[in-house]
């Protein structure tokens, strides 16, 4: 079997400015970008390791550690604040017993801040693995999380 990262590098190598696309593809495949992949990406795209590392660390979206089974992104921006997202976030921290950028010990949930999901007409908002939720209350958050817990 060929290495998934080599397959991705082959797919994007000929594109102009391919590094972000490569990183997106790796994260979509593996859930994160492993440290060991950096030299391989650098060699594959004829970049320095510093350049690859610099790009990975610049963008908030790219992860360097494996995520939980579900990634909960909660909006911290102004529109959601105006609808008391700070109280919701306090509830979420308490419910999951983790802070931002952490993963629950059972590996179920990672909690990430996000600065706007474009759902500002339905604040407060959050997204779980691409699924958007609006007017989130502590109770509706608990229901969504409980449904995910039952699934896993």
């Amino acid at each position, binding site marked *: 079997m060929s290495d998934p990262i080599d397959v991705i590098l082959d797919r994007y190598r000929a594109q102009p*400015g*391919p590094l972000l696309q490569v990183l997106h593809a790796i994260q979509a495949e593996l859930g994160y970008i492993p440290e060991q992949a950096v030299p391989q990406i650098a060699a594959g795209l004829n970049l320095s390791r510093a350049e690859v590392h610099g790009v990975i660390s*610049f963008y908030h979206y790219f992860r360097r550690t494996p995520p939980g089974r579900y990634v909960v992104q909660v909006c911290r921006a*102004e529109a959601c604040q105006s*609808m008391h997202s700070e109280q919701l976030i306090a509830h979420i921290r308490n419910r999951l017993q983790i802070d931002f950028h952490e993963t629950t010990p059972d590996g179920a949930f990672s909690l990430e801040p*996000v600065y706007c999901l474009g759902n500002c*007409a339905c604040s407060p*908002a959050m997204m779980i693995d691409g699924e*958007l939720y609006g*007017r989130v209350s502590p109770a509706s958050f608990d229901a969504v999380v409980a449904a995910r817990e039952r699934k896993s």
Partner: protein
Amino acid sequence: MSSTLYVPRDAGALSLGAEDVARAIQHEAAIRGMELVVKRNGSRGLYWLEPLVEVDVDGKRYAYGPVTVQDVPELFDADFLNNGSHRLALGLTESIVHLRSQQRLTFERVGVIEPDSLDDYLAHGGYLGLRSALSLKPAEIVQAVTDSGLRGRGGAAFPTGIKWKTVLDTQAAQKYVTCNADEGDSGTFADRMLMEGDPFVLIEGMTIAALAVGATRGFIYLRVEYPHAHRALTKAIDIAYEQHYLGENILGSGHRFDLEVRLGAGAYICGEETSMLESLEGRRGEVRVRPPLPAVKGLFGQPTIVNNVISLASVPIILAKGADYYRGFGVGRSRGTLPIQLAGNLKRTGLVERAFGITLRELLYEYGGGSASGRPLRAVQIGGPLGAYVPASQFDTVVDYETLSGIGALLGHGGIVAFDDTVDMARMARYAMEFCANESCGKCTPCRIGSTRGVEVIDRILAGVDRAGNVQLLEELCETMAEGSLCGLGGMTPFPVRSALGHFRDDFMKPR
């Protein structure tokens, strides 16, 4: 005979349960042995009514909303498929007062058509702008856009036609059209709604831009937080290629234009145009020093149009109906319509597209219905996290570029976030600095260091440490950031901070 109804698949509507409602409707119809066609449109932008279900009765659309799964059997009992009366009935969609009073030009099809149907797009006036452009010389297209008075809707308000003329007049073997779809400002969602609800209009606008300046390749730089828009755009681009609206020979004209979507990765700064270009090239999104302008030396060093989604999506109607038609809307130097986004603590949040000239008060109370909480509105932030806070005493201000700048505020991308009287404006000022520190690309010192120092100074003020001295220091720091930063992130963070300090000084001085 089967009935047709519409359930939006706009991300905002989905976030309120539209998918479950669509499923429940189909399930209920199956139980009752009724034949149904459920079409999936974009959102009308009336988010307090989402999920907004529309039924087609003899070619007229009647609205029901907000519909929950529990309401569905009742709606069938009330014969809603034939416009039966029900407590959720809103009458003819186009007669809903908050929609009827709008002037939908750029958003004329959003919420009306199925976004993934080229036929629907064509049946509603789609691609008339491109057909008109194909009969014009490049300079004539640019002239039409200039004459329309269209200014960049991303926030900078630079005349779109002037920018295009620079690209047209710059000689190069390869030119690019790029669309800035990195809509990161809190309180804004117009780009998202448009890309999800009418993606072909953006493709058409970019194709016209390419013809106007002689570009053959385009990129939409889309934020990764918009997966629904990503799917809608990708599908529409595929269809446009199949039907020869994109590719090597557009509609048999001999013109080539290739278009693809590239995803951002959660960096707010990449909404700044030079940072966006760096990111498109696969690098850290650090801003470039200007000049040279992107119009002269942009993507991969070539002449490049960088326009916001709404700017590009406004081009087809200008070409289809003429510059004078578009210019006929608006006031002063703010021509055309503006899609305003009402967000945050309001009863009726959503999209209001109107000609320039409406006041904040009309927007917040007649459209917005006042605060969602029922408490008095205290302030609004206009134009995203780098926009000023405007106090209730200035709600009679007209929302256009010049008037807002006259009161030390700015329009930006047209997002308005409302706060009730529980807001702590010193905390919001602190947040503005914290956001800047978090999102700074790090290239220039006033932004990178200034924002962190800004958080610290505000923390000292909040802690009651030498308040007068630290307020003075904060004002000086704001001046340094405003004057010395390379781009708008550090340069404009002082807008929310200074406006909070100027209009709400008591919040900084009260004991905590």
